[in-house]
């Protein structure tokens, strides 16, 4: 089910991060995703560590994202604390070919990515 390049990457890595975009379809596919990672871990890369699920596209004021995140938390999934908000700046930074920290260094989103990095490496 995994393609060659994803499998190679999971074997080459020491750590794994899973982006989650607060969508019901993503929520359902999470199980098979974790199974696939578990399989690579057992068969090829015992040192692979799941660092956590990154909650992306998280809208503070909407109900659904919070509901989905609560469900995942209840089920004991390893969610990272930092939430990444949706923003038009992401697409702008793609088109400018500059990562957010260089494109809009003081924007809320840049701060969120810095917080995420701190959470992982701090």
């Amino acid at each position, binding site marked *: *089910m995994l393609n060659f390049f994803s499998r*190679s*990457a999971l074997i080459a890595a020491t*750590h794994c991060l899973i982006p989650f975009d607060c969508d019901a379809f993503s929520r359902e596919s999470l*199980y*098979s995703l974790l199974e*696939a990672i578990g399989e690579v871990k057992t068969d090829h890369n015992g040192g692979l560590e799941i660092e956590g699920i990154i909650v992306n596209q998280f809208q503070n004021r909407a109900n659904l994202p919070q509901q989905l995140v609560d469900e995942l938390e209840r089920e004991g999934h390893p969610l990272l604390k930092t939430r990444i908000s949706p923003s038009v700046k992401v697409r702008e930074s793609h088109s400018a070919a500059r990562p957010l920290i260089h494109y809009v260094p003081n924007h809320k989103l840049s701060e969120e990515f810095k917080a995420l990095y701190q959470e992982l490496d701090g």
Partner: protein
Amino acid sequence: MFTYNILFFYRSKVQCCFNGKVVELYAIRIRFHSVMGTRTIREDSCGGTEFPCVLRSYCFTMTNLLRGDLQMRRVIFNQKGGVGKTTITCNLAAISAFEGKSTLVVDLDAQSNSTQYLLGRKCADPDITIARFFKDTLSLNPFGKSQNPSLNDIVHETPFQNLCIIPSHLEIEALQSRLESRYKIYKLREALMNLNKFDQVFIDTPRCSTFLAVPR
């Protein structure tokens, strides 16, 4: 790179009260002492039954450490498209580089979005991309032995300090079935472990077009 002198492996049993029940947990930790200070490499606590599993995974980490493999290699993985893999890969890598760490992004997505994000363009010539590396793993040397090609020649500098990228190319798609049937899945790990000038590696993965969500 770190120079290390002592590797410290630590385990202790602690009792915790969890939901009114007393459970025994093992604390386990690998610390790393070097001239540059002490750094905790891994730290976990686990219940008694999980302990053998966790210990096994620690043995792998220890083996890597003893081989001098201290590179942090993160894969950003989700088989669904549009969840933000490329954005997260490139932005975390940019911050890591900005903080002064020697950082590499490996783009394994044939659509080359990370490549475009960090270089501003796709690479037209497959011979300067990851396609070259995978092609080389498939070719045999004059003695008929399979090869372990290096990634050194396909590392590109980005306009951002400390940040490099190995770009992707559409051609890798066509190589996939041959790579799979000839069992080349370990080649990327070997090559990255030999590329020890980078402290942090971020790997962007492709979406899986045949991937189906399996509800429970």
